[in-house]
């Protein structure tokens, strides 16, 4: 371990003495302080939170990503090119020790820079959202809806399986089916979307109920919130009038009237209910107006208090950090394989592929969603789709939800999410990268600089 620590320390000393860390710290602090001031928000506390955390911290994250990519690609490759590695590997230093030392140096550097950025953003957030200058109602809503960490619970749709099967059958029989009926996955997805849409549709002057199952470990002393979003009817943008009723065991709330504009998320704080752990909650919508359909996905969600904003913010920083140290592992490994510019390019491409993974897979689906049969794919498109489909499972575990968006809207970045990210990016993929780099360094001739 002494050798690993020594290599990590030398990497850090290099970064410090080349003034990389100081320059980056200055740039990052400038970004998180100045950038939010240049963005015109909507003047609300929630809007400010979005600007400060999502854009300010997000921009800092992008700068850190570029810096990490650059520094990681240089870590081993420049040592090889300048032949400094020759005085290291002729000591009792195995390839894994070298890789680990270089990687840990970058981990420490990122920890320092990200902690500094995170602390400044958090301090600015606390100062700006302090009690006093804001309208008391807005401040109360902000405390309940944004400055918290709530776990979103979607309605239990397990009973839809039969309906999905029926929809699948209907799609296969339909000569105008919007998907290629030979593609079972696509048929299943469209059938699921249709079944969910039917489930979330409420006819005029009728009511519909949905069952929610909150997590077993929740804080029962904090009120639940209901977040919903109605899809716009084709002909009308008028608010939909109706009322919600919530039931948990023998307790039932009064009807809570709402007039919700379409395509806009509305958040309701529900009256206090004493929830027992594991107790389901039933939400009923009484529609007194035009036909209403809740948006699929995030159209109807119960928000259950999980923890404080500060803890949630810390977990988002942890996810950001895990992402950076994964990029560091990728860069150090690429540097063991290639010369510096090639390593930087390869690392950049892989980071880009990971970021684009979700987009690559949703594009073909989105193309079919406008109705009618899908256009015939060209051979190139078919090949590209096949390649995208093949690499998709490799990159998917590396993709993250938009955790900065989650924090800035009061949604919980759960420990499960953070630990999953940690496990995949460091435990699984980091380990594989370390093994790959070790094998390469063991075989590679380090006695000559590679041009």
């Amino acid at each position, binding site marked *: 371990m002494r050798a690993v620590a020594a290599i990590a320390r030398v990497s850090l000393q290099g970064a410090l003495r080349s003034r990389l860390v100081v320059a980056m710290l200055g740039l990052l602090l400038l970004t998180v302080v100045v950038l939010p001031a240049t963005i015109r928000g909507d003047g609300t506390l929630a809007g400010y939170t979005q600007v400060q955390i999502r854009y300010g911290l997000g921009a800092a994250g992008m700068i850190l990503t570029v810096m990490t990519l650059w520094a990681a690609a240089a870590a081993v490759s420049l040592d090889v090119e300048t032949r400094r590695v020759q005085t290291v590997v002729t000591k009792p230093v195995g390839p894994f020790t070298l890789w680990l030392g270089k990687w840990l140096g970058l981990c420490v550097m990122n920890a320092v820079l990200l902690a500094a950025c995170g602390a400044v953003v958090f301090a600015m957030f606390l100062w700006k959202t302090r009690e006093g200058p804001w309208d008391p109602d807005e401040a109360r809503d902000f405390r309940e809806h944004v400055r918290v960490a709530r776990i979103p619970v979607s309605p239990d749709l397990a009973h839809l399986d039969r309906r999905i099967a029926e929809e699948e059958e209907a799609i296969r029989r339909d000569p105008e089916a919007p998907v290629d009926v030979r593609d079972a996955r696509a048929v299943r997805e469209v059938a699921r979307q249709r079944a969910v849409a039917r489930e979330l549709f409420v006819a005029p002057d009728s009511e519909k109920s949905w069952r929610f199952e909150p997590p077993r470990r929740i804080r029962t002393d904090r009120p639940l919130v209901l977040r919903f979003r109605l899809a716009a009817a084709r002909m009308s943008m008028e608010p939909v009038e109706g009322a919600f009723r919530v039931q948990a065991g023998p307790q039932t709330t009064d009807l809570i009237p709402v007039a919700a504009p379409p395509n806009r998320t509305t958040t309701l704080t529900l009256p206090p209910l004493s929830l027992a752990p594991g107790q389901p909650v039933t939400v009923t919508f009484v529609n007194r107006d035009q036909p209403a359909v809740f948006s699929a996905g995030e159209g109807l969600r119960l928000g259950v208090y999980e923890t404080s904003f500060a803890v949630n913010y810390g977990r988002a920083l942890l996810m950001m950090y895990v992402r950076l140290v994964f990029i560091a592992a990728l860069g150090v490994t690429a540097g063991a394989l290639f010369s510096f510019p090639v390593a930087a390019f390869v690392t950049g491409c892989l980071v880009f592929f990971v970021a684009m993974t979700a987009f690559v897979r949703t594009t073909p689906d989105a193309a079919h969603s406008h109705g009618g049969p899908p256009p015939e794919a060209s051979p190139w498109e078919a090949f590209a789709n096949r390649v995208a489909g093949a690499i998709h499972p490799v990159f998917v575990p590396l993709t993250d939800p938009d955790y900065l968006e989650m924090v800035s809207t009061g949604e919980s970045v759960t420990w499960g999410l953070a630990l999953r990210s940690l496990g995949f990016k460091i435990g699984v993929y980091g380990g594989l990268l370390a093994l790959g780099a070790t094998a390469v360094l*063991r075989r590679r001739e380090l006695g000559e600089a590679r041009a």
Partner: protein
Amino acid sequence: MTDSPAPSASSPVIRAEGLEKTFRDFWKRPKVRAVRGIGFEVRPGEVFGLLGPNGSGKSTTIKMILGLLHPTAGSLSVLGQPPRDVAVKRRLGYLPEESYLYPYLTAEETLHFYGKLFDLSPQDRRTRVDQLLDMVGLTQARHRHVGEFSKGMARRIGLAQALINDPDLVILDEPTSGLDPLGGRQVKDVILALARRGKTVLVSSHLLADMEDVCDRIAILFNGQIQATGPIGSLLEQSDQIQIRFPRPAEDRLAAVLAELKRAAGGDPEVRQPRMNLEQFFLDTVARARESATEVSGAAPDGKLARFLEHTAKEPE
């Protein structure tokens, strides 16, 4: 430091047989045959020199011994093990042909860094670093960054890092290159001191005078092949001639002696006025100048061999 089995007194520290190295281009086509089937042995406790002009294959051979390059053919063992064995590296010290050190570290940090790679305890490290800095005359420059060093100072710190682990086998690639005569003399003294204490030294150079001063045996490489090898004394000996030195006699006496020698040996004897070796003259001059100087900048060339190298040195196993 006996992680790998030590060779017996008779077994060589380095054994190369039919060693070849061919560098290839990107398409794996042979580009340069740097080493062509060489074989040699380095025995415990000897100073072995690899001599040759630039491009003769000295550095390539050394890098194969260090595991930095893979032989294309042939076999190679170092301290009885394959060269890339990590345990071998615990007993090995290496000074590369250029000082490939981290320029942003100070001299002291550099030695501590390499000491940590050998897992030396902090106390051992401090002691060795102090003694080595003193030995190479860089105590005054211990807090200066290596990147600011002159070539000679960088060679000195390079030599110090090669000895931080008190190695059993020291490999020095062009150790006196870039050093002034004082530094060169000092490096040669270190090599001789190491050899006296049973260490094995493999040294490569094209500076023939330096090699003559320190090597027990040499191998001369040219075009990747060994052209001559053996003990330096027997290689340089001219057995059909002798040299006699004595105080200058009077001219008539000298003429009489020469006439007698001519009669006895049957040829014309050559008479020369002996001259002092330029290196020795330079060293004496600088020594006199230093006695009258109060302060010097750069490397101080009067360091003694690091004490830990004296105390812990072992007899050849």
